[in-house]
């Protein structure tokens, strides 16, 4: 165990470092979630209520409906990639908060 005293949760929660981490996370997760929900639900809504538009062929036999459905896969992978990149920053910020409890990293021997 790296530390024997129980963490002072309320103190850690009110530190500027922790507030900053929460804000940074929300700054990514909230817009990303709103975006992927809007993008995903646009598919059944457009296909269901605007079938003529979606059935328009744009590339050989491929229509907008198929290409839009296919683009959902790319969308999901891109957001996952962007989140993984942003999360590296969140990990560093989280490590700072943990350090405030455990002290300097060299003290925190396992």
């Amino acid at each position, binding site marked *: 165990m790296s530390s024997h005293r129980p963490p002072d949760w309320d103190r850690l929660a*009110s530190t500027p470092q*922790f507030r900053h981490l929460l804000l940074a996370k929300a700054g990514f997760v909230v817009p990303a979630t709103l975006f992927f929900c809007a993008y995903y639900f646009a598919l059944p809504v457009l296909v269901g209520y605007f079938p003529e538009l979606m059935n328009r062929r744009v590339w050989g036999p491929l229509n907008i409906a198929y290409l839009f459905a296919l683009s959902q896969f790319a969308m999901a992978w891109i957001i996952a990639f962007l989140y993984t990149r942003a999360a590296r920053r969140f990990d560093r910020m989280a490590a700072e908060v943990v350090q405030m*409890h455990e002290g300097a990293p060299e003290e925190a021997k396992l």
Partner: protein
Amino acid sequence: MTVSLMIFLAFVALTLMITAWAAKKSSGAASFFAAGRRITGWQNGLAVAGDYMSAASFLGIAGLIAFNGYDGFMYSVGWLVAYLTVLLIVAEPLRNAGKYTMADILAYRLSPRPVRAMASLATLTVSTFYMIAQMVGAGALVSLLLKDSGIGYTTAVSGVGLLMIVYVVFGGMLATTWVQIVKAVLLMAGTLLLSVLVLKHFDFSFTAFFDAVAHVRYTLNGALVEQDFLTPGLKYKPPYGALDLISLGMALIFGTAGLPHILIRFYTVPDAKTARVSVVWAMAIIGAFYVMTTFLGFGAATIVGRDFIAKNGGINMSAPLLAQALGGDIFFAFISAVAFATILAVVAGLTISASSSFSHDFWSNVVHHGSDRGPYEEVKVARLTAFVVGVVSIVLAIVLGPGANVAFLVGLAFAVAASANLPAIVLSIFWKRFNTAGAVAALGAGLASSIILILLGPSVRGPAHAIFPLENPGILSIPIGFGAAVVATLVSGDRSSEQKFAELQVRGNTGLGSEKPTAH
């Protein structure tokens, strides 16, 4: 003995060896419930994919596309996008603040007994319904795939049930994990090979492939028709088709992050960072699989043909019949065996999620008030539960019989997960004011509304007598679950849960005080 039976028995032998190896390594509760939390990111990613992609995905979606073209493909999109909810919102805080089950994160700052009792009920409901759908599917498949080997429905159901009991009772989470990994690799290999063979059939020309998809011929009402299979609307027709699709999408997007058997997989990795990596791996694998359903489904529609499939076992046989057309009997046997492996891995995951919830949530914390009963008792109860759950599923699947319409049970599982589990999880992580009354209300109302709406819907009453017009209740039951949570929280006025909100926030976001992997 047929070739498919031999390949399947080889898979069974391999999984039993895995189980024996896992049984030798296994000791203690963290080992049984969470594989010692020592599974790596890519391993857990494969296991999540193996836990998630059921026979309904492999055989069902290929068939949906083969029969309905574009609508089937659109159906498959939500299964991947749903993992963004898991990745962005649920996986990391759950790993940081929980121990063995979904209810752990709820019990953190809420009153443990009522919350765990309700969460355990929701978990057992989801797992049992999902499992019966898989078991009936497995039994029905046997009569089609292994019809020459003399294995009947009852034997197949009992065999699948017995194997899942053996994996879980003796090998715990470690064996379950590796069975799921082996299955995911087999499923991906089979799907990739099938896709390449479909493209080879069209001389690797996408133009030729999609031209064929735009001109699919089949018999409709006795007349031969030609149909562009990229046209939307062949399955989901007015007046309710679009609403049903939106409702299904909601159940997938909000339900996947509330499926107990998926959530407990994140306890098997050392920390939240590895949980995140494993979701990304799972998304790569699951996404690749669903993209390839284009080739499986459209390939079956163009190369085998709807009429032939309908005469030779029906919609669920689309992928195996495609394999037979492209690679002969050996490849047919391989794909059939993959379908069985698929079912086995999923039912094992469901069994361990049901048994850990019953033992950890209900037995230890509700019946025994969370007093320390010792880790060995918890494991013993979980093993016993796995056995009981297995036997009950075998009996129910045999009683229902091969002809039972059980596909809606999978939809029901997702609806309960989205309407009951997810509101409780999300609000307990993000809403300070959320309290015990809110969680119990969300779980109760979400569970009840999902079940009632399905009972009133077209899957159970038939399209002509349906009182609720949609097959998927999500569009109504999800707002009911969230609404009940908010109203009950505000009405009860209980604010004791706010005290531990700071602790849950710090734990969830930093991993401070999280469960560590066990030493060997």
